[in-house]
């Protein structure tokens, strides 16, 4: 299959659903690392900032949350770490996990423990 392009900036703040269609949060951050010649994505952060986005102060609200709640938001306190192979980007309008929320929780905790 031919390669496809995705505009990352348009995915930011989009709703993410799990494989059963349950909303788990919004795409907050994308992490990349070097792999040979290329830089590749290895992890997404899906956070709880859903409500704040309505005020369009999404990023700011998030930052303030982090300020007061230290790094908990980022460290999976209420958000999730999603490995690259668990998030399907093929339809940018509908970001879906390849697993269910419960499975994601286990994966996320495992990643946390590894750090």
């Amino acid at each position, binding site marked *: 299959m031919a390669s496809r392009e995705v505009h990352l900036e348009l995915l930011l703040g989009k709703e993410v659903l799990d494989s059963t269609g349950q909303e788990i949060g919004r795409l907050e951050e994308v992490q990349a690392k070097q792999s040979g010649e290329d830089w590749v994505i290895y992890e997404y952060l899906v956070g709880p900032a859903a409500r704040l986005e309505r005020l369009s*102060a999404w990023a*700011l609200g998030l930052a303030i949350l982090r300020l007061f709640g230290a790094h908990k938001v980022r460290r999976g306190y209420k958000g999730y770490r999603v490995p690259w192979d668990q998030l399907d980007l093929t339809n940018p309008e509908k970001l879906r996990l390849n697993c269910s929320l419960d499975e994601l929780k286990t994966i996320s905790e495992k990643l946390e423990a590894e750090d």
Partner: protein
Amino acid sequence: MNKILMIALGILTSIGGFLDVGAIATAAEAGSEFGYQLIWAILLGTICVIFLVEMSGRLAAASKHTLADAIRERFGISFYIIPLIAEVFVDFLVLAAEIGGVCIALQLVTGISFQWWALPVAFAIWILLWKGTLGLIENGISTLGLITLVFVFATFKLHPSLTQLGAGILPTLPREDVTHYLFIAVSILGALISPYLFYFYSSGAVEDKWDEEYIGVNRMIAGVGMGFGSIVSLGVLIVAALVLHPKGIQVDSYEQAALMLTETFGYWGFILFAASLGIACFGAALEVSLDTAYIVAQTFGWNWGESLHPKEAARFSLVYTVFVFLASLLMLVGIDPLQLTLFSMAITTLTLPPVILPFLVLMNDKSYVGEYRNGWITNSVLIFTIALAFILAIVAIPLEIIGG
């Protein structure tokens, strides 16, 4: 450069920048209508603006980033677009009001109606920006701005009662006209806490290549310079309270304000009032025009710099060129300058929350300010200022309708 000289220059720079059409107009109106009772508003506004200007400078010195750059980079375009549009809109109104102030000053002296001066004044502003450097603008205008000290001298000559002055330091409500009183208080705060100062100051700091060594200098400039400007505002308020208030003259137009120094200094008093108004507004007009070009260029990552030749920063230079002439049109069609001033001060307060809120994040973000993060005192003042900004934004419009 010698550090003391640097501080002295910096302080001088900020004096001219602090006093503008809004500060003069609101202080004159406050003094003429409520005597000393609104002194607290000037003091409160000064404290807020000192802290915010200090933070803008510290951000620039520690991160080499201007405030506008930092907000877009840290929060992304979908948040930044709010303060950006708000700021450009407010800059437009304020610039028109500043141009109006210069035009009125010329009208006072020559008798030729202010409308006729709109385009010549706009041209003078533009040619200075086009040909001049940042150093020339900062130092030239603020040196001339020392003329506004005339209000402080007048205060001493008029011997105000210190106990009555002291009573104005604490906020009190008047027995009547409460809404109008509060409206003027809000306008004073809107005039002193001008968002353009923060963007302009941080851009100037980056253009002057500030680094960590300037952290201390910056603190001095913000504190002494802004405090000094506030003393001049207080001078305007006190003179208006002593000269106009007892007679029952309420400042509804600049012509009335122009009388406040004639009893103390005679003909020169009149000329000095016009000169103070004209120079302060001219300086502020230069800063507001530059500010707009700065933030637009920084939004899109264009090359920018007042000291660059226009062809080195074509889009930047074009922004201020178009902006200055567009703003002067508001004066050309004859909108009343004082009404426009008060109106734009009220609108300014509406834009304060999205402009000030990002400080809280940026000034605590290690990746920007590193070890120069806010301490608990600066954070407390900042949170207080943000709360104040929200209150002002909420009450400004109802007050304008009922009391303005």
